[in-house]
């Protein structure tokens, strides 16, 4: 492990507050809990498992962390059946075949060693994060890890634990700058205890109306602050309804952007009715809001 003096991140983010400020500079308002979680992920360093409802900014948090640390973001989107050739590396077979033919045509002798060299290697996200040349470690975002299957989770776990990977033809690749790892999960299944045990954990809550308004203004700078306040309040009102999918901060931003592009300067009942589709994504939910009256949605 690096000691504090040689840690390239120590100067950039000496404490939690410094990281919070840098995140804000990159248009991401993190509360103290999330700042602390990201700080520990980067500085301990330890993989961080982020959970929370859809649309609270799990993925964006990792992107903002990369921006704040002025380093590369490597994203691995998980899906069912993902395996090492899609996540780690693959050989460039077409090029290898060409290489063989070329050598034949030139009458050269060809060895195994000539075909399995780094130039024939196709890096996938995990390998690319491990081989990141620095000067600061890359941020590796493993998105929706619950979608991958058990086998992949075990494989990932081992890779994270070792910060190295063995490619039979090339030998062991050890990361010079082990990546800062952020995993997100939607809780569609239980993750393995072994993986959870290794990770820091943070549950992201919906922000309150005031913070939501700040976040909206940061993302839609053109919007008036009064409009942002109104939308933030309306969204928190909608969340009290018994809706199937409670709107998150992403929906609030989308709503303001829609109002903005349509030229509404204030959120009134008529504007809300016209644009409700950008915040409630189920027909039943929209009907529920209509039944409660749009007047209530905008004014309470």
């Amino acid at each position: 492990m690096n000691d504090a003096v040689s840690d390239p991140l120590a100067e950039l983010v000496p404490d939690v507050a410094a990281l919070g400020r840098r995140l804000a500079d990159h248009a991401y308002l993190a509360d103290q809990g999330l700042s602390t979680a990201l700080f520990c992920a980067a500085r301990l360093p330890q993989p961080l498992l982020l959970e929370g409802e859809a649309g609270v900014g799990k993925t964006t948090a990792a992107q903002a962390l990369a921006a704040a640390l002025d380093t590369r973001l490597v994203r691995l989107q998980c899906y069912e059946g993902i395996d090492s050739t899609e996540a780690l590396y693959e050989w460039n077979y077409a090029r290898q075949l060409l290489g063989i033919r070329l050598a034949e045509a030139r009458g050269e002798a060809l060895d195994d060693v000539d075909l399995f060299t780094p130039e024939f290697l196709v890096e996938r996200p995990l390998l690319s994060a491990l081989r990141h040349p620095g000067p600061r470690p890359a941020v590796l975002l493993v998105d929706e890890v619950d979608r991958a299957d058990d086998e992949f989770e075990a494989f990932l776990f081992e890779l994270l634990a070792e910060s190295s990977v063995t490619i039979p033809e090339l030998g062991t690749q050890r990361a010079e700058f082990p990546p800062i790892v952020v995993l997100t999960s939607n809780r569609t299944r239980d993750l393995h205890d072994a993986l959870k045990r290794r990770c820091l954990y943070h549950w992201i809550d919906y922000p309150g109306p005031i913070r939501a308004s700040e976040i909206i203004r940061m993302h839609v700078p053109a919007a008036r602050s009064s409009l942002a306040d109104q939308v933030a309040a309306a969204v928190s009102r909608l969340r009290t309804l018994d809706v199937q999918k409670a709107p998150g901060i992403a929906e609030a931003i989308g709503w303001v952007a829609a109002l903005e592009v349509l030229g509404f300067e204030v959120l009134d009942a008529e504007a809300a009715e016209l644009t409700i589709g950008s915040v409630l994504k189920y027909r039943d939910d929209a009907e529920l809001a209509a039944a409660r009256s749009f007047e209530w949605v905008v004014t309470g």
Partner: protein
Amino acid sequence: MGRHRLIPDVADVVARFADRLHVAGIAVTPERAGRLASALDLAAPSTTAELYWLARVTVAGDRHELATFDAVFDEVFRGFVDVADSRGATEQPRLPPALERGDRRTDAAAAALNADGGTPRPSTLGSDRVGGDDDQPPSPVGAPASDHAVLRQRDFGSCTPEELARLRRLMSRMRIVTPQRPSRRRRRHARGDSIDLRASIRRARRTGGDPATLVRRRITERRRRVVLLADVSGSMEAYSRAYLYLLHGAVRALRAESFVFSTQLTRVTRTLALLDPERALSTAMAATDDWSGGTRIGDALREFNDRWGRRGLARGAVVIIVSDGWESGNTSELGRQMDRLSRLAHRIVWVNPRSHRPDYEPLVGGMAAALPYVDAFVSGHSVEALEHVLDVVASGVSSTHPVVSARRSGRG
């Protein structure tokens, strides 16, 4: 470090804090405790809020642990710091009773209690509801059936405890199998439809770089997930027990998920994987406090859809619902939620033990509302009928056995 240190002796405080968390039911591994110590060292918290977040991020491992964590944090750090300002207006959760008891217990005893590291929360386990077999009312049918064949046809609801135990042994040999679906993974196969380039190139090295034989592979198949939603209110309990036994063995192989409901929905998948079905059921029932309210199937289904089904748990799965369809809530809500569920699930098999009676008609409000969305409607009230349920689940075809065969067209 120049900053004023909030905590005098890090190692000591971390150890004691971890100990209290242990007693409260959060398993703090030495690894996590060590991580907290490193974090405290690294970030040198000077306010309680800072300390709270550092501890929570490093020690808590799941959302469910957060309330307990908060309570213990308050308990431990209230002594020399004021925590009130750290988390805004959140209500302070009560300490679990076990922790209050822990106050009077010696540290050594507490440590011994938690020596195995995986102690479950004492508040839900060890309840006096566990010994279910002893306090069951005597069976309405007099003499226990001795004949094997008779036992196979015996209604679960009218079995004596001894008979149930014997049935359980019968059932342990039964295996639930779901239909297959294409997986995204590919395996090598002699007549596969795509080429495994990696293996082909490797083989080409034997023939001087000429890919003379192509290695093929094809998509593998995977069994569909099975999800059980079992009604445990009143007379349905005996039947639901049988189905939990059935799914006990399938937790791993089929990624089976089990839920029980009466007035509220409880997920028992994890308890079922760790404990035997009897204890899992008792634990779930201990968590349900309201028994007089009747069965709210619609509400339970809505909670299932919102919290689990929509996120992917029910997608493409075979859903088995065990219930008599007596809805004490709103039947139109039940219809709506069944509609949602039917759009997520591959098939819905409704097991209604009452339906084997010759005079049964699904006219009960709830049952009538749910039926249009059910792919197979079966009785499943005895071991013999259970075999039929397994056939229906495995084959993916509609059922001929039931009194009513409600089936929508156009689903596969």
